[in-house]
């Protein structure tokens, strides 16, 4: 196959993305909904950050804010999203168009609706190759077949001619991934990339993402509601609750030493395969808070087993875990002892 080597010189180390004090709120008839509150983190090149949280915790809005995909009407953003040193919140629409797909891309949850149903999949992949890499139609076509091969689609030459409806859910998600990585972005945001898929297919897709990430020295943000999905495939995990990061640590350290009661409660309420049948599950009482009615104090306080008066009146800041500068948590009465 006459394939042109595509080179993207880029250092493999160093900071790629820094989010500083990001706030995103939506104007709604019920009032201002604070979906993302004071979120800060940074991501090194070639690393994977897992963002975990329940529905309504703000993880999807966070990914859209980073990508600059939210509409400007009715949405207020503050803070900074520094990507390769450039603040994306103040970037112009045309600057963003040069970044989307080429420097950072997003994989959506639903592979059924992420593709254009009326266009052959090969053409959908070729589109960004032609736009960003200025390949000729022929080159783009060959390269898109090569991409289909890389994401594990059998007989990619024939498949490039197929329409999305002719493919299964897992295959469509592979096509979505092929489009996302086509221009070798430095950052890939994967928002619940395996949620609608069967378990055997889920494992294949997660393996594929991890392989591509390490081959291409691409950084990844893996967003999921499932602690299992992020546990084995990330370098660092941020746990979100009510729009805030409530705990953040390198993956192994987080599981070994959880400080925030919510993180522990989330883990304990997940059924484990090694437990005997009919094991009573730990539950978190109540429901996640209404983001239009966020008041002072810890948002988890009404559901927390260790709540004190201070929790209800003062919002706990994200603070360092003792001398461990990689582990942060937001809690007045943390679990365990200082490391």
């Amino acid at each position: 196959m006459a394939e042109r080597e595509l080179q993207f010189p880029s250092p493999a180390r160093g900071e790629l993305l820094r989010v500083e004090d990001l706030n995103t709120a939506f104007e709604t008839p019920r009032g201002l909904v604070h979906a993302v509150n004071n979120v800060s983190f940074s991501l090194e090149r070639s690393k994977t950050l897992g963002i975990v949280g329940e529905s309504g915790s703000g993880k999807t809005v966070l990914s859209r804010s980073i990508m600059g995909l939210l509409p400007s009407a009715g949405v207020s953003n503050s803070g900074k999203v520094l990507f390769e040193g450039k603040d994306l919140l103040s970037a112009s629409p045309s600057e963003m168009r040069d970044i989307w797909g080429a420097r950072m891309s997003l994989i959506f949850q639903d592979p059924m609706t992420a593709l254009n149903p009326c266009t052959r999949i090969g053409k959908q992949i070729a589109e960004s190759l032609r736009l960003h890499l200025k390949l000729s139609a022929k080159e783009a076509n060959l390269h898109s077949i090569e991409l289909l091969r890389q994401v594990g689609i059998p007989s990619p030459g024939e498949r490039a001619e197929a329409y999305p409806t002719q493919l299964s859910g897992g295959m469509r998600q592979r096509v979505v991934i092929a489009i996302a990585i086509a221009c070798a972005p430095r950052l890939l945001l994967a928002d619940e990339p395996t949620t609608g898929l069967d378990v055997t297919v889920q494992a294949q897709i997660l393996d594929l993402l991890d392989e591509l990430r390490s081959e291409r020295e691409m950084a990844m943000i893996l967003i999921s509601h499932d602690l299992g999905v992020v546990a084995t495939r990330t370098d660092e995990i941020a746990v979100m609750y009510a729009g805030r990061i409530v705990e953040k640590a390198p993956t192994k350290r987080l599981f070994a030493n959880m400080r925030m009661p919510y993180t522990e409660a989330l883990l304990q309420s997940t059924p484990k395969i090694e437990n005997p049948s009919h094991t009573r599950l730990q539950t978190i009482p109540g429901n996640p808070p209404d983001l239009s009615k966020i008041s002072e104090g810890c948002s988890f306080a009404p559901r927390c087993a260790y709540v004190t008066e201070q929790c209800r009146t003062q919002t706990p800041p994200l603070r360092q875990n003792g001398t461990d500068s990689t582990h942060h948590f937001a809690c007045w009465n943390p679990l365990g002892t200082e490391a």
Partner: protein
Amino acid sequence: MGPKMENLLEVKAIEVNFTKGRETLQAVAGVSFHVVEGETLGLVGESGCGKSTTGRAIVQVNPASSGSVLFQGQDLAKLSRSELRKARLGMQMIFQDPISSLNPRRRVRDIVREPLDIWEIGTEHERQTKVDQMLRDVGIDPETSGDRYPREFSGGQCQRISIARALIMEPKLLICDEMVSALDVSVQAQILNLLEDLKERYGLTLVFIAHDLAVVKNVSDRVAVMYLGRICETAPSEDLYRSPRHPYTAALLNSIVEPDPESPIAAVTVIGEPPSPINPPSGCRFRTRCPIAQDRCAQESPELRETSPGHAVACHFPLNN
């Protein structure tokens, strides 16, 4: 499978076909199992394996085209319409989407009460008391919430209301079709615990259909694994999860992602995705994805055979664990 305990439900070689134009899709291709009174049978498999269709065939929503469903010894297909309506009182179903399975224009109290009104059970006052009690049993306060509409509740609370509606006629058998898949883990745990409590209190027998293996293990006494319309393995749950004998069961267990960073990432042992049920593979239906398939698997369809008490597997070359 001795006759020592009474079988509340017996499913015998059922097939369910759907036809569209000239094509026939066999969603369930000869499935047999039994459920003993008081136990929970988990029915697990990937999408398109026919687990939901099996559940719907049991309650005769889409009746089997061949085979039979015996509930309390009665062959449901042989009943007249009015007899079937009565028999169905003993079996209720709970669906995946808690919000769309409730009528948005009716108040919670009326939704739960409707079966009592239809069957004219008890006096006005008795019905009201029963509804209030039932709502309390599922953790919904009838005083503050009884007069509200489904849209005012979260997914977890709507699922509680669905449970109350299903239990108001005091059924023997509850068929739960992916009832916790749409819920967040913290809420899912609440509902699973609630289900165990209610099973105890109301003496229920459950058929629990789900794709999540950890959830199925948590609730089930026995588990049947389905693949492309057939059962490939059935065993007591501890046994099945500890020593799976069908390569498909082993592959499913291998694919589970555990919330533990120290757990090794198992090499994926199945390749590709399930083939289309419109044109299933000959012989063993799993052979196209099976790592140990041989010629015989293409020619001969393996029967479900008991390999140890209560543990049956449909494979020519079962794994030795």
